[in-house]
């Protein structure tokens, strides 16, 4: 059924009015009576021993309520923060798992590592007092340069991880791949660095906690993407507060992009201390703290080789990667460069043999974990860089080389050599459409015109594959994942016919309050205004896995469909009773139960009312009430795919790169709300463009200081850094979920870096430049153009 509010409609967002009128409620907005404020004194050093902490002066400062150190937490038996995914190395051994204390007691391991928590009557007083704390540090050599992290003689981060190695992991059979390389007509090799990024959700992380002495209940408000998972970690592993005594609420959350999935030190400390302090405690990160301590993203050093036969068919791919974990293993860090990276290395191609070796290293830098795309942007950057390089090497059109190697539409389901089985897809029409929108044929004329203005114009492709909506739980468990990958939904009708859609996923910008309502409206015929989507509070929602990895619609939406099926099934029984018909004869159409071939009908609202006022009701067969729960565990990942084409102009005088055209054509399966999907793609592309041209988390290689620690030095994409984007869609519905949907949240960020970088490489190729590091900043492009050494500038 297609209606103005159902599936496929551009319904305006229901959450917008509160955000547009200043009535959203983010964690820092909470009015908590008698609140205290926490401030964390952090390590100014990348690596140091803590020889002593002197609190005497700080304790005397005005407004101070309490001060806690790592020792206090250790004495109270507060556990280590955990990494929830056990990756087994190539010998079958589990990864090294060094402890991650909530407050550092003996050693600090990155600039920003929290050492002391000061609680005071105001934020300023807490900060004033923190400045009076004297920490005696013995500064030690730091390991900051990822390329050297695993070398002999490099400073060690953890005794538990000798040589700074967390795991040495592999996928594929190296001997088979080597044999294929031996027969290759051509081998293309690349060395690339996937630059480290800082997620920068516009709302800084925040936490507030309150303890109820009478009931022993803790309430933690957190800027979390997955409140139930946070509660589970805090309860089962870190704080030992039973789950039923801990309520976690993630209210309006101002963007996450992965960085708010994880369990962080500050929210843990605030929650723990709330019972000691006896008053609510609030903490909100200053942006400089977000830069230092939000889990960073990407940060790979990779060597890759692609073997091709004489006709340009891919024979084999070999990838060697060192992945930075930072100083501690964040919640899902270990999975990102393995199961979310190497398993994607087939891309859209039929490459029959692939071998990947990933070494995860710890360094004296902030923890690194999933950031929009998580592993998949890194994989796409490798594949799409090397394919475009191969096209250059072989002097063939990059689109032609791609097309020649695409998995044919007839081959689905397609088993890749890297574990995944792609369920559906049809790649050639996507690239055709993208080339049409981008006017690929007209490019050479545009290049020549740009040249007449002294500009270097280039064009770049990126044909990505994404695996999102991680699943099924059993497989994830076999691979070491510590949690289930299902999602929950509850459809709770009220007697008057309106309904609460309770989801275990969480919305922090994605528009679930609108999209999920559309699904229910479409499926059950309930008007949109009678539907409310509830999420984000462990006390009012069923246990759910939250939002990450573009899973909410594919998994959470499917759970809602399952719950709706149960509502219909129950409603049929009620309606059959009311219509004195056989259940088998009852059909549900347009929100009404009908007996085929008659004019008998019972609207859903009437069945709901009967369920709550069961005066004329089949009580012997079914229970009263209309409230159905469902859990959905998908059979497989979903596999969105697409092609982006980026066109740039480089100013050789200044090294500046301007994006003059950007096209993205995606296959997200069926689309519920095209307006929201477009917004997701736009935002993702901007982040990908940011990675390619602007953003770079830079640590000083000697001192480990974060050089790009504010918006003065970390280049965020601004409105004039990006163009308006041209989008297109092709649809192959997902065959294994009830909505036929795939994820759309990460696609833009996954594909864009390679599209932009291939365009920059293409623009600079006439000058003989063969290697362009990412990000292609004006400085680095100018240095390339002028043949100056990049190393000298750093």
């Amino acid at each position: 059924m297609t209606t103005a509010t159902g599936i496929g409609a551009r319904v305006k967002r229901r959450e917008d009015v509160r955000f547009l009128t200043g009535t959203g409620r983010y964690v820092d907005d909470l009015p908590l009576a008698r609140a205290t404020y926490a401030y964390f004194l952090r390590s100014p050093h990348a690596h140091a021993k803590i020889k002593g902490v002197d609190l005497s002066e700080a304790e005397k400062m005005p407004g101070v309520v309490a001060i806690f150190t790592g020792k206090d937490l250790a004495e109270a038996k507060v556990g280590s923060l955990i990494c929830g995914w056990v990756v087994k190395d190539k010998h079958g051994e589990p990864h090294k798992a060094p402890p991650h204390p909530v407050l550092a007691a003996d050693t600090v391991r990155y600039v920003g590592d929290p050492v002391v928590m000061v609680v005071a009557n105001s934020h300023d007083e807490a900060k004033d007092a923190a400045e009076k704390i004297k920490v005696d540090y013995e500064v030690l050599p730091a390991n900051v340069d990822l390329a050297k992290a695993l070398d002999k003689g490099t400073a060690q981060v953890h005794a538990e991880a000798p040589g700074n190695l967390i795991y040495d992991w592999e996928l594929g059979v190296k001997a088979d791949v080597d044999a294929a390389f031996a027969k290759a007509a051509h081998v293309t090799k690349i060395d690339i660095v996937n630059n480290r990024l800082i997620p920068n959700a516009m709302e800084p992380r925040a936490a507030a906690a309150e303890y109820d002495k009478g009931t022993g209940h803790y309430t933690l408000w957190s800027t979390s993407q997955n409140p139930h998972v946070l509660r589970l970690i805090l309860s089962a592993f870190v704080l030992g507060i039973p789950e039923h005594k801990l309520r976690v609420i993630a209210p309006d959350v101002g963007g996450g992009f992965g960085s708010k999935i994880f369990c962080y030190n500050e929210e843990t400390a605030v929650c723990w201390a709330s019972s000691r302090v006896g008053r609510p405690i609030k903490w909100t990160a200053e942006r400089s703290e977000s830069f230092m301590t939000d889990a960073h993203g990407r940060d790979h050093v990779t060597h890759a080789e692609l073997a091709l036969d004489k006709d340009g068919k891919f024979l084999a791919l070999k990838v060697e990667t060192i992945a930075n974990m930072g100083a501690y293993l964040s919640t899902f860090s270990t999975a990102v460069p393995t199961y979310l990276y190497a398993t994607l290395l087939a891309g859209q191609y039929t490459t029959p043999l692939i071998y990947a070796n990933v070494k995860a290293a710890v360094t004296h830098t902030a923890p690194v974990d999933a950031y929009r795309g998580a592993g998949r942007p890194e994989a796409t950057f490798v594949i799409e860089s090397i394919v475009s390089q191969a096209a250059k090497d072989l002097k063939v059109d990059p689109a032609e080389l791609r097309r020649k190697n695409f998995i044919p539409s007839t081959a689905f389901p397609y088993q890749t050599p890297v574990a995944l089985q792609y369920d559906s897809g049809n790649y050639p029409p996507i690239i055709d459409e993208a080339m049409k929108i981008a006017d690929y044929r007209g490019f050479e004329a545009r290049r020549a015109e740009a040249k007449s203005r002294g500009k270097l114009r280039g064009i770049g492709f990126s044909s990505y594959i994404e695996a999102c909506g991680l699943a099924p739980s059993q497989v994830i468990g076999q691979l070491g994942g510590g949690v289930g990958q299902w999602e929950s939904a509850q459809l709770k009708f009220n007697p008057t016919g309106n309904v609460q859609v309770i989801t275990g996923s969480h919305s922090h910008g994605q528009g679930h309050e609108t999209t999920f309502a559309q699904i229910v409206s479409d499926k059950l015929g309930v008007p949109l205004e009678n539907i409310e989507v509830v999420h984000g509070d462990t006390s009012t929602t069923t246990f759910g896995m939250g939002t990450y990895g573009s899973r909410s619609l594919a998994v959470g939406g499917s759970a809602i469909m399952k719950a709706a099926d149960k509502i219909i099934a129950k409603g049929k029984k009620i309606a059959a009773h009311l219509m004195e018909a056989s259940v088998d004869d009852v059909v549900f159409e347009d929100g009404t139960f009908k007996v085929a071939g008659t004019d008998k009908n019972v609207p859903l609202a009437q069945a709901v009312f009967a369920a709550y006022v069961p005066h004329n009701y089949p009580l012997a067969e079914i229970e009263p009430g209309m409230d159905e729960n469902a859990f959905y565990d998908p059979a497989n990942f979903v596999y969105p795919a697409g092609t982006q084409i980026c066109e740039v102009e480089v100013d050789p005088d200044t090294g500046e790169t301007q994006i003059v055209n950007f096209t993205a054509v995606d296959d997200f399966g069926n689309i519920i709300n095209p307006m929201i999907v477009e917004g997701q793609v736009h935002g993702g592309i901007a982040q990908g463009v940011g990675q390619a041209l602007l953003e770079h988390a830079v640590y000083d290689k000697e001192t480990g200081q974060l050089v790009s620690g504010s918006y003065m030095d970390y280049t965020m994409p601004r409105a004039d850094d990006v163009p308006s984007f041209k989008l297109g869609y092709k649809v192959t519905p997902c065959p294994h979920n009830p909505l036929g949907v795939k994820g759309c949240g990460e696609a833009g960020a996954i594909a864009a870096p390679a599209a932009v970088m291939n365009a920059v490489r293409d623009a600079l190729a006439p000058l003989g430049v063969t290697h362009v590091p990412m990000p292609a900043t004006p400085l680095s492009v100018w240095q390339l153009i002028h043949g100056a050494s990049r190393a000298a500038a750093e």
Partner: protein
Amino acid sequence: MYDFAYHRPKSLADAATVLKGKDEARPMAGGMTLIPTLKQRLARPTDVVDLGGVKELAGIKVEGSNLVIGAMTKHVTVATSADVKRMIPALADLAGMIGDPAVRNRGTIGGSVANSDPAADYPAAVLGLNATITTNTGKHAADSFFKGLFETALGEGELITSISFPKPDKAAYMKFRNPASRYAMVGVFVAKTGNTVRVAVTGAGPAAFRVKAMEDALAKNFTSEAIKDIKIPADGLNSDIHGSAEYRAHLVGVMARRAVDAANK
């Protein structure tokens, strides 16, 4: 930030009185640099003297062939002033490129010039136009005003009251922005008055400076062609993750040529 005593004098004389004798007092014009500095706890003044109430310091006057701009005149006012656009359009352009709209609504010319931030725009105009800086105690020539990083010829308690810009025959300002902060990584102000040409650079060094070799070449032939082979030495120029000294030196040439072309348009 640390707390401080706040003063809002109504006159220049009162402001000077409050500032006098307090070692750690800081005058505040628009606060666009001072407040962020205080927020980061990088300064700890005992007293902040807000000049926002000193009405005599704001406003733009034309005095003969000079444009006299009061110290507390906001960037937005300079950017949109009909007098400035008529007399020295390059100065209006420059003011319109400072920070972002909200910053231009608060930031002032006096605050910017007194601060001598290496990445500020106004110092290039002051130097490029050979302006005169008037203070509550005297006058400073532009050439002897900018002493170094955040360092000027202003004495203790000395406050800029206005800046007088002589009208050039032609002038233009070209700026290469730091990609992250959007401050000037290199900004070049070029002005031609009679047979004299001044080329002033901001962003590249510890403080704004002039490029004599370019000025001489342009005095003979005011075209970008005339300076295309003039190389600026990188020694002593700023260097950071966004721009090496060599890159900045190179950009001085590019921005200077573009400024000359713009001035000739």
